[in-house]
């Protein structure tokens, strides 16, 4: 009988304590933001899809030497690049660098193995498209467009 009333008392008290906590939270400011109206600052180390770093000193505006290290090391086989030999230019010239972002797992292996450090992560996190092909990024075109 004593336990019976003790349980009512402790139980009731715990319920009131719980309700007081939620009541206190009710009057505190909200912690979420209204994406996409507000956006939180992105960490500088965020890893989006890979891009070719723009280098103004190079004639091609990028540092890629078409060594195909990234293509070989990629765990998901999502990089497709090609270079060609041109008259009067030392080494290979990059003519195609396609990244299949649907397969990429953003592990960063390509960025690490790149001998001339030509690759980096972008800060893009909003990817929208209507077909798979929309996510086949042409990194070479991107670096050329990026004036």
């Amino acid at each position, binding site marked *: 009988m004593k336990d019976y009333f003790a349980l009512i008392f402790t*139980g009731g008290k715990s319920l009131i304590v719980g309700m007081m906590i939620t009541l206190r939270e009710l009057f505190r400011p909200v912690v979420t933001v209204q994406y996409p109206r507000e956006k939180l600052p992105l960490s500088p180390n*965020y890893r989006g899809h890979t891009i070719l770093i723009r280098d103004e000193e190079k004639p091609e505006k990028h540092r890629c030497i078409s060594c195909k290290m990234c293509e070989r090391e990629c*765990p998901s086989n999502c990089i497709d690049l090609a270079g060609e030999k041109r008259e009067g230019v030392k080494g290979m010239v990059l003519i195609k660098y396609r990244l299949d972002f649907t397969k990429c*797992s953003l592990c*960063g*292996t390509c960025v690490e193995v790149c001998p001339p450090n030509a690759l980096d992560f972008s800060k893009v996190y909003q990817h929208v498209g209507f077909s798979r092909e929309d996510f086949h990024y042409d990194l070479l075109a991107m670096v050329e467009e990026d004036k």
Partner: protein
Amino acid sequence: MTTMAEKGEHRYILNMGPQHPSTHGVLRVILEMEGEYVMDPQPVLGYGHRMHEKMAESRPWPNFLPNAARMDYLSALIYNHGYVGVVERLAGIEATPRAEYIRVITSELNRLQSHLLWLGVLVLDLGAFTPIMYTFEDREKILDILEDVTGSRLTYCYMRVGGVVRDIDDKFVERTREYISWQRSRMPMYDKLVTGNIIFRKRIEKIGEFNPDMARRYGLTGPVLRGTGIPYDIRRAEPYSVYPEFDFEIPTETTGDCMAAYLVRVREIEQSLRILEQALDKLPAGPAMAKVPKKLKLPAGDACYAVESPRGELVYHLTGDGSDTPYRMKIRVPSFSNLSLLPELCRGMLLSDLCACMGSLDLVIPEIDR
């Protein structure tokens, strides 16, 4: 239905999952019910099978690194740690001391966020919506810290053989210290809102009780096992990395019910915070990446590396044959063993208790299916 009727039993089959709010993923449990009582629960696995082990055997070993994070999305860094650990052990490479400390710090942060998510989800399974939002508020802080150093928020690919990708800086240390004090200040609130709540206690106390013997038979590990009073934690039982240098306790409870698993996990949050504090204090200087040959071949032989994931013992077993592709890879995941207990544990239980039980086992389905 007809077969049941033919047997003369008033039983029926309730198909719980693969889409059900409290199976947390693509787990399907076929329940043989009698009224509201679960007479025979049979888990059906494999909806999320992606043959991770076979993938490891078919490609050079570095290509498995991103896969490790995809098995258990809640403790990706710990899975990272296990994989680089086993490769290092097989190849005889030592990570730098600083890298080991960074691994421990990020692993413990990862464990904390996993426990916080579990805390919210367990209470959500029991019908309270609000605590999960509070735990997410804490969890976001960890994810922000980890995003800053690893570059991603959930499926990290941060650790490499010989060290880690990116060194941590003073900002990271400062933010982590801030987080530790914040989390400490939040724990009394959870104590009052969740642990002390009479409805919550009545829902999980004396539910799903099992003894150490049963735990041994099924190979249970992790907080569920420690809830029965066995202080088995890989961080102490089979120390790896720099864990022996830290002073922390292995929380245990004796009752072996859902409440015990709950209390163990909540107390582990505090222990993880203690490890974090000590690791940040002792953090040595030096490089975060050791000198590793560019083309590392796995020597012929076996290696085994066990780590303590938030759900229990995670073991990587790697066999090399002298090439850069593993000959055989076996991953022992904790959730698989923990789930195998379910049919015996939940026989004769109410449907509501089954949800509580599955919540307290803290299952991550992609980890089970691999």
